[in-house]
């Protein structure tokens, strides 16, 4: 969900950005390291402790064999990512190690982890191992931006809303309904227009696409979304704000702010430049 947090944590431990990580939601697990392991935690602050000692998010730590990492409850936000050097070595299914819960395949036996599970780790080539205590900060450009305002690029069907409804869409406070999950969030809030588009043909959607079914409750599509959909598309959350979206929990409020496509892409390019700078800094060995 918070892909950016996972990427950063992976980079810190010398993994490829897309290496498999643990995603934990609202309350975290207690993990025991069977062997010495370098790890980093990204995303929300779960008050993590290594053998009782507090862990700072997005900082590399070296755990000895037998050490215990305990994640508590998320203080703010929703999801944290534990990246371990070498990544998580589960079988690749349909080209990925991730878990697809809706159809129960991939990842660790297609399911969420349970107490007693033994998680196999890979090894990386050692390029990332070493002493990172000198790395002070990720840097503002690459750092994830969290918060309750999501910037939205207008979608193809936004123009069909009345001026008044558009004002409600971009001004009002919505609440993330309990009927929300990794596929998408239902957003309770003021009634928007019922866009009558019964003949709209199914087409691809993205993570961050905001659909408006005729019932009037917008749906924000997230990581486990369907690949295509047939409801009107009123906007797409800017990529740089997807991490903020991923950290929303049921009950949280959220507002949408309009942003142009060019601005959204500009922010993304700035962020990627920041990530490139981070990669170079991590690769530097004096």
């Amino acid at each position: 969900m918070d892909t950016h947090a996972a990427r950063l944590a992976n980079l810190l431990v010398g993994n490829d950005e897309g290496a498999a990580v643990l995603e934990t939601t609202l309350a975290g697990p207690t993990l025991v390291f069977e062997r010495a392991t370098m790890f980093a935690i990204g995303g929300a602050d779960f008050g993590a402790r290594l053998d009782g000692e507090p862990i700072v998010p997005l900082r590399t730590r070296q755990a000895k064999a037998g050490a215990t990492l305990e994640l508590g409850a998320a203080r703010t936000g929703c999801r944290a990512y534990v990246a371990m050097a070498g990544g998580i070595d589960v079988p690749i299914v349909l080209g990925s190690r991730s878990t697809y819960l809706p159809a129960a395949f991939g990842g660790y036996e297609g399911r969420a982890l349970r107490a007693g599970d033994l998680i196999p780790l890979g090894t990386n080539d050692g390029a990332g191992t070493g002493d990172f205590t000198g790395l002070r900060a990720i840097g503002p450009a690459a750092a994830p931006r969290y918060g309750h305002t999501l910037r939205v690029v207008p979608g193809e069907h936004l123009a069909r809303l009345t001026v008044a409804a558009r004002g409600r869409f971009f001004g009002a406070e919505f609440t993330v309904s309990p009927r929300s999950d990794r596929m998408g969030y239902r957003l309770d809030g003021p009634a928007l227009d019922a866009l009558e588009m019964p003949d709209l043909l199914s087409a691809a959607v993205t993570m961050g696409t905001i659909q408006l079914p005729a019932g009037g409750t917008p749906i924000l599509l997230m990581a486990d979304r369907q690949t295509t959909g047939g409801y009107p598309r009123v906007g797409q959350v800017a990529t740089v704000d997807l991490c903020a979206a991923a950290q929303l929990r049921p009950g949280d409020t959220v507002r949408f702010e309009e942003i142009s496509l060019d601005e959204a892409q500009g922010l993304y390019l700035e962020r990627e430049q920041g990530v490139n700078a981070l990669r170079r800094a991590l690769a530097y060995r004096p």
Partner: protein
Amino acid sequence: MRILPLGDRAILVEFGSAIDEQTRLLVRASFEQLSSVSFAGVLDVVPGFASIAVHYDPAQVSRAVGATPHVAISESVEEVLRAAVTTPGGEPRLVEIPVCYDPSLAPDLDEVAAHAHLTPAQVVELHSAPDYVVHMIGFLPGFPYLGGLDPRLTTPRRSSPRTRVPAGSVGIGGSQTGVYTIDSPGGWQLIGRTAVRLFDVERDPPTVLRIGDKVRFRPVTLAEHRAAGGA
């Protein structure tokens, strides 16, 4: 043909707004053309009924000085599609799918019938008569979008999607019909169920249906459905 942004990391190429044979062949030819070219930064190409999305990484697309990633990818895609040639496909496979239309498995059959001013039996007859063609796979793993639905059966999607539609459910959404391949949220009107597993990750390939296949629905009784392992 027009190209629109689909957020800041994808574009949507639209070929019109009809489900017809001409559009289907154009989408298929364009999809094959785009898939055969290698573009820097393109992550995925996803065909729809009358559209194709190109998902890309704005930081990876090659662009001229001053061009935004969106403009750069749109121009590249447009150039490639100008060369796409629509050719008639080979003889398609015919796949027969047994469907049980019993009311216990068809919660929206009465509503579809009422909307069409037909009886439920007439709806079943009209739904199971044609040979459909698979226009696209999407929404869920292996989920087939079928063209050829009798226009009398066109029914709007439900105004609020269900949070859970059982795998194997046969539905109508607007002028489209299809089969849910896994348990999923969904907004289509449900008129029956099949025992066939259209998607199985253990199988190679995991999906039964492919773009261009012909599909026929064969009505079966509740007893036959259960005997075949249907839920």
